[in-house]
């Protein structure tokens, strides 16, 4: 690595703090569902924590299915043009500090 400078997320404690903040926010948002009397159109919407559960479960299902899709969709990078070497991007890159 070129520099010895410490950046904010180089310290694992800061990452932990961020994740903990997320947990706290999620907890607060879930509790708010009990306090605020939401109006709703669809009956599902009225269920306690519907949006929270739907968001979490939806994303887990999304990732699990996507991961499974890799088993039959994933190919080598040169799948379409065998003769072509995986050339790195032809433009840019001259601004990288070595």
């Amino acid at each position, binding site marked *: 690595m070129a520099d010895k400078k410490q950046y904010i997320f180089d310290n694992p404690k800061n990452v932990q703090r961020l994740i903990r903040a997320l*947990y706290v926010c999620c907890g607060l948002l879930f509790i708010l569902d009990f306090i605020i009397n939401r109006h709703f159109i669809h009956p599902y919407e009225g269920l306690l*924590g519907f949006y929270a559960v739907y*968001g*979490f479960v939806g*994303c887990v299902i999304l990732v699990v299915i996507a991961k499974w899709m890799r088993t039959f969709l994933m190919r080598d990078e040169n*799948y379409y043009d065998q003769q*072509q070497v995986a050339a790195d991007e032809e433009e840019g890159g001259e601004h990288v500090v070595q």
Partner: protein
Amino acid sequence: MKKREANMWYNDLPAFVPFFIAAALALVTRGTLRSIIMLVIIVASGLHLWLLPESLSVNLHFLEYDLIPYRVDRLSLVFGYVFHIAAFISVLFSLHVRDTVQHVSGLLYAGSALGAVFAGDLLTVFVFWELLAVTSAFLVWARRSKRSFESGMRYLIIQVLSGVILLAGVLVHVRTTGSLSFEVIGTSALSGWLILIAFGIKAAFPLMHTWLTDAYPEATSTGTVFLSAFTTKTAIYMLARGYPGTELLVYVGAAMACFPIFYAVIENDMRRVLSYSLINQLGFMVCGIGIGTALSINGTVSHAFVHIIYKSLLFMSMGSVLFMTGKIRATDLGGLYKTMPKTAVFCIIGAASISAFPLFSGFVAKSLIMAAALKEGYHWIWLLLLFASAGVFHHAGIKIPYFAFFAHDSGIRTSEPPLNMVIAMSIAAFLCLAIGIYPVWLYTILPFDFAYNPYDISHVLTQTQLLFFSALAFVWLNLKGIYPPEVRSVNVDSEWFYRKFLKRIEHSVFSWIWQTDSQLRSSVLDRIRGLIVYLAQLHYPTGKVSVQRPTGYMVIWVAILLAAYLWLLLSFPSAHH
């Protein structure tokens, strides 16, 4: 500002003309002068459009048809405004590029999009439809690599195909209705279906979408910003104009909103991830068109408006990464927040906007479509769109900034991009926030008058819950090691059909032709060779023809002939005179 009087001559100047003039001037100027000309003309053209009256049309009689090459109304005006914003941002973002091809084709491309949305008749639409295809292909080719050339070729073929289908549809339409004017078309006739397919190709309908995910990631770092704004949104405008309330579009839109997010999760090329999420966003718009109420059409138009801005912001941030580091695969990136903090912040603002966080622009637009779906009783569609909303946050909102700027440190140390790129990104980021915080301005320019307040407590709470718990899912999946690791790979999509299957078919057809051809030829050659051998055998020293006979043979034969002659003469004396 006050709108101008309707009867001024300069009102009739079509919106694409200044862009074509700017392109011509960019061709003959260089450096700072060119930069100033391009930006000033776009600003002037935008002001001109802003001052136009709300309804205006220019009629032209050509052969036996009435053409309307320029029609201004509230629907086309919104697209006109946002296309000007997009053109300004994209041109500003590409000012550092010393490439006349990109500047000129970029301006022609933006002008063609303006020409198409302000076209009042189908023939004019067709002309600009094809111009869009040709001018944008140069932005892909401008990368000047073998990959981009081939990708641009495939892109151009599909785009032109869309134009050909459009022309066929228009011709049938004129035969049956006798009119070229571009109003609601619908799917009651064959022509309506043809035109819908033509529009659908450019709107990236499922299975017809791979030109987008193929070509956009192969264009230049600045060219993709242009590309992301115009082609697909012109198609959205066309659908909103020609097919509002076509129920099929509700289901097509829901499919478009859902299937790309799976691809986006496992895709490695960051700009291809953004291309898939672009299709996901188009899905919401197509859905809104299909629902077809004033609320949902307003939703589609406002979503298109804010989408163009945040999508170009996201493509700009990834373009900056590509330009500065030469890398764009998630496997090669990471930790860039250390040396590109501003770009990281812009990217996060774009990501928050596309994810529809409250106070960001996506929030005030997407909810119109969702509300319309619920109101019209499309409950399953609403659930799917809600899933797509969570999914878009997952792949575009978190994945893009996370893998580029955070995640594991790739060790790449670079710096912020050139000033013009930073300014372009800050303008887009400012607009994302401004529209999110003060949506009234956007709502007043929408095609239908309506009252809507996105900031009621239920809506803010539920949307925030949805997004935070999606983020929680991301963290949880990562900590558990379930999240799929980034891998250098390609994922098979429907382009497999023409890039592999047709190639295989072509290969086997040609090999069959070659085989039959060579068999046929060899059999003919064999026969000829046989004939030659036979003739040769005849003439060989031992051959029948080359038997040497003594001269005595000849004498005997002559004698026999003479004898026969004599015999004939004596037998038939009357024949002799």
